[in-house]
């Protein structure tokens, strides 16, 4: 296994892991309690 596979394979695992782990949590307060949020329901 070369550096290419190690680096990009590692990046893939970390990125996917971050999504699968952090994706379960609600966004921070600064994100949720804004006045200029996209109004998905309004449209």
């Amino acid at each position, binding site marked *: 296994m070369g550096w290419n596979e190690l680096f990009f*394979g590692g990046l893939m*695992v970390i990125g996917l892991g*971050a999504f*699968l782990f952090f994706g379960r949590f*609600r966004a921070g307060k600064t994100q949720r309690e804004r006045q200029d949020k996209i109004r998905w329901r309004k449209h």
Partner: protein
Amino acid sequence: MSKHNALTTFGRSGNPMFRGEVFKPDATFAETEASGRMTLAGTVNKTGILLVLCLVTASFTWNIFFGTGDPAAVSGFLWIGLIGGLILAFITIFKRQWAGVTAPLYALAQGLALGGISAMFEAQYPGIVIQAMGLTFGTLGVLLLAYKSGLIKPTENFRLMIVAATGGIALLYLVSFVMGFFGSSIGFIHSNGLFGIGFSLFVVAIAALNLVLDFDFIEEAAEQGAPKYLEWYGAFSLMVTLIWLYLEILRLLAKLRSRN
């Protein structure tokens, strides 16, 4: 074009999966029982399922290509995957209540196409597929963290910008596709010159920013207690964007490698 007209023309999200009326028929979210409501964890799990399904069929066509070394051996699967995926995507968009069935089928179909396409790129540029996958999922993870932490704050103007850019790119690809039937094409789309690479970088950036809109939609839908089937719909939308991002990164890397 006024802001209102632009939104009417292109839809309310950069991602065509998130049409404006997605929430409308489900205006009584609050009346849904807690067990029947969409959750973030449910959407993440379903995205994981779709990714695994896509990987399974992608491995199938990948192995056929490298087993035979003949592109013609996978071209049938490639077209089945592309056309089948397109039909299933439209069914999912217009009948999102069916997403629990159509989204997994879409992932399986797209896997057939992606496996074949990836294998052809890999045969020409060894090591390119792992690079594209690493960059795609790396982008997914980084943008998710940026969104969750509030570093990127999507607003109506942000959405309008992404919608307009995505619509423009889609139109350009459509024109190029039609011109292909007459033996012509828009040169810079496929060129490995500076302009061609700049165009690919722009498209990759727009595809990546579509992920932010996906996150925002999913977050908002879960926050509002949308029905459970929208978990599959949200996962499907993320898959559409991820597949687009992966293919654009693959094209960008191929352009860069072809200059050597």
